[in-house]
């Protein structure tokens, strides 16, 4: 190692110390802590989401995907906190628990293809890419979509295809989809998306203001093509508890 490299190394170390950027090992530890936080939340919401834990494959995917790559540099030290974080453009990277819950609700399988409306940071797509064969993701904000496409490519998520477009019409070329995940605010469930959903498929839509996701709406298309919606709350709320 030349003196120049040494200086650069020391400088980088100082920058990391100053900015609170943890090293790779540290990230692994933080990721495990995040998994533990998610499991705690799952246990606390057990009676509500009717399960004691998320699918093991989902948790493995969350263990594997480096969330810190998807957050802005200034928030690296908070990347693995169980909270939503701002990523610019008025968008957020969702709370890990919500990402886990949404992914789990889709019942992902290795042979499936999933459509995501609202690529955002790319984190949700990266998690899905570990679980399904193909992820198609559409982003409406050009600048954000381009940046995330580059990031996903750099990180080697080859089974994710991104597209800058209006998510309302879905992506008919690759339809039908086993699952659809919509992270954009919508006034109604877009009929084209329902049409592009396979029979027996599921669509998940988080509803609520950013930083305050309150519940998820699940759209299910049964084998006869009948469509129902169902609300899934990530919180315990049951009327008539008589607890007060």
């Amino acid at each position, binding site marked *: 190692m030349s003196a120049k490299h040494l200086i650069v190394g020391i400088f980088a170390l100082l920058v990391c110390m100053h900015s609170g950027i943890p090293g790779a090992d540290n990230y692994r530890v933080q990721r495990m802590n995040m998994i533990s936080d998610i499991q*705690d*939340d799952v246990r*606390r*919401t057990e009676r509500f989401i009717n399960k004691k834990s998320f699918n093991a494959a989902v948790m493995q995917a969350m263990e594997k995907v480096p969330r810190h790559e998807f957050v802005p540099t200034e928030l690296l030290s908070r990347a693995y906190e*169980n*909270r*939503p974080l*701002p990523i*610019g*453009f*008025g*968008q957020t990277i969702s*709370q890990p*628990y919500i990402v886990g819950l949404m992914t789990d609700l889709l019942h992902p399988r290795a042979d499936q293809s999933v459509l995501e409306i609202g690529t955002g940071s790319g984190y949700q797509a990266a998690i899905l890419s570990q679980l399904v064969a193909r992820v198609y993701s559409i982003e*409406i*904000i*050009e*600048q*954000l979509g381009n940046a995330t496409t580059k990031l996903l490519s750099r990180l080697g998520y080859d089974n994710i295809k991104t597209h*800058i477009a*209006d998510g*309302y019409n879905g992506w008919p070329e690759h339809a039908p989809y086993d699952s659809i995940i919509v992270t954009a*605010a919508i*006034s*109604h*469930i*877009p*009929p084209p998306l*329902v049409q592009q959903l396979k029979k027996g498929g599921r669509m998940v839509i988080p*509803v*609520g*203001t*950013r*930083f*305050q*996701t*309150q*519940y998820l*709406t699940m759209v299910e298309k049964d084998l006869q093509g009948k*469509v*129902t*919606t*169902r*609300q899934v*709350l*990530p*919180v*315990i*709320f*049951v*009327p*008539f*508890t*008589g*607890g*007060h």
Partner: protein
Amino acid sequence: MHAMIDEKTSTPPLLSIFILSSAALAYEVLLIRLFSIIHWHHFSFMVISIALLGYGVSGSFITLFRNRLLQHYKSVFIINIVLFGLSSIACFITIQQLPFNALEILWDSSQWQRLLLSYLLLTLPFLFVANAIALTMMRFNQQIPLVYGIDLIGAGLGAVFIMALLQILTPDTLLRVLAISGLSAGFFALSNFNKTQRRVTVSILLLSISGVFMMPQAWLDLHLSEYKGLSQTLLMKDVSLSHTHSSPISQTDVVQSPFIPFRNAPGLSLQSPVGPPEQLAVFRDGDEMTTIDHVTDNSSLEYHDYMSSALPYHVHPSTQNVLISGSASGAQILQAHSRKISTIDAVEPDKQLSRLITDVYAEYFDWQSLKDKVTIHAISPRGFAAAENNYDLIIMGPSGASSGGSAGVHALSTSYEFTIEALQSYLQLLAPDGLLSLTLWTSTPARGNLKLFVTAVEAMRQSGIDKPENNIAWIRSWNTATLLLKKDHLTTDEINRVREFSDSRNFDLAWLPDISENEVNRFQLLQIPVYYLTAKSVLDNSDTRFIRQYQYNIQPATDNRPYFNNYFKWSSLQEFLSLPGQTGISMIGVGYPTLLVTLAQATVAAFVLILLPLFFIRKQQNKSADRRGNIIIYFLTIGLGFLFIEIAFIQKFTLILSQPLYAVAVTLCAFLVFSGLGSLYVQYRLRTETAAAITVLLHRSILLIGLITVIYIVLLPLISNSIMVLPETVRILSAFILSAPLAFAMGMPFSLGLAAMQHNTPHLIPWAWGINGCASVLSAVLAVLLAIEIGFNGVMLCAVMLYFLAWRNGIKIAS
């Protein structure tokens, strides 16, 4: 600069005080507008409330440095004027540079530091104004009521000026105008200056004014939160701002997006074969998006028939005349038009919104083919409902975007549209066979729609409908619910049509007179069929358990407690807070907690500001220690009482004047101007009479305040409906006349208190001024909190009690 002092000066700079007070009140109103645009209404409420503590800080500051400041009165007065002018604009610019995100405050502790910094910055302009006024009172201590009277009158007229200016100028431009107005107050404080002094002062003022005038516009451009709907929409490809208009009510922005259509269709059925046509998006204060449809032919309107709000047109296909309450950007007008309705009355208090469809985008909206059958009335729905008309159908909502309601940002807003009295007046407007249709966004967990149902049932019962269960139909889509009320029983045909409409569109039934349990919760599955359970429970007269035990407050709203959007319930707080992570806070909604946090912050700050000077005064003066308790109680109670009554009257007049905007302007103007006259009357009496007159006037004014307030509590609900139907100018005049005697009496106690102290404890006058300032801040928050809990009549009664408490202490101060 202290060389300029002329100790012989004997006339207070009244014109300066008038302009300064006027500019300060206008600035306060402007800040509320500015923060509502760049952040959200509830945040604006919190920041401005705390910023007004500048008055409290001023009291402490002057108490501590009284002698030194008075010694250099003229210089200090001018300096404070200059500092107000410059800080009013500089502080806002600085706050805009802070990376503050109100939404993230529950997650990120660093946001609190930024919030604190915002408070401190905004406190400064109010501190400087308060310094100038309080020092003038100290300097001209024989004329305190005169100075105070001019201060109040200036502030009262400032309220009207700013409302008028907001009609013609944008808020960012007004920031510059108010800073220059504030600075110009200095020109009227130059009497008794010698030539050199004048030249220096005028130079400083002109330099400051030039600086403000030449400030680059980019510094003043409003930076909306990136999380607001408008900010996010403007990031989309090829989107452009098509039209912007600012009014005292809101800033309206119209956005066009040729590349990515907006497609706003609240609760559109999944069975709809068609979607919305091309649309323009309309944002109010950068959020709450509604849309204007591009009407080309009848097919562009077909989608309206697949929304839950189309239900009444299917139940009564032969409907002829419709009243649309809150027509906004015209969606409900088009829905009625698509059903071939021959006469449409639409009510929209915001003229700017109506102008978009009748003028600015008339061609786009095809107003030409509508104008012969549609009449838009610029009045509140309640004001219109007070008139005697007869409709086959009355339609209300949904309005704006859905997210706000669930986040609780409107919890602090009063609404007279969904109170028991309001629904009763709508029912009265119905033809014998008519329908009242109310559509709201749904929220999860359900709250707004349940509250509406409970309110509707109560309104029907109070209207003499014995068995409302036979008169109600209720359906829901995945994000809207439509409630249908009829004065008479729903017929079998009508019930069948509700079923047919819902089934064909996959909407769920929540209530029908002959509903069975297996009909509910089929398409939009809830974990518990809470809508049906609520209806069943509420319609069973004997069972109020459901409402009592529900985690949210779904008790009906009334005109006395018009907080329809507040669902907070103390008994659920612990349960919510025990939820994982931050979700519990999300469940409560941000409105009510904002109020509590603001109150806590204001109380702590007020406590410090009131007690801190005492620590120093004790060292200087011990003689007056025995009266300090009386002074604290007196100035706290009259400060609280004054604002309690004023805030209650803003609400009472909102109903009478049919426009919240007029209510604020008229009430502030009337109360401040008449109070100012009351204070001038005190000055007039004290010129010719002895100090004993203080006690007499105190007795009379407080007795009058108590008596008139109690009379109004009884009288106003009785006369409101009669006044509501009168012409606009008569209604405004009535509000002025009603305010006059009460406000006149309310202007006396403060002046009398200070006049009494001038005899006994003059060194404590700035401290009393500060106490009163702190009380004003506390009262603004407390009044809302009390109104939510006990109603505005309760707030007025509390004010009476506070004034009587003040009376007892005032007598001791005057003795």
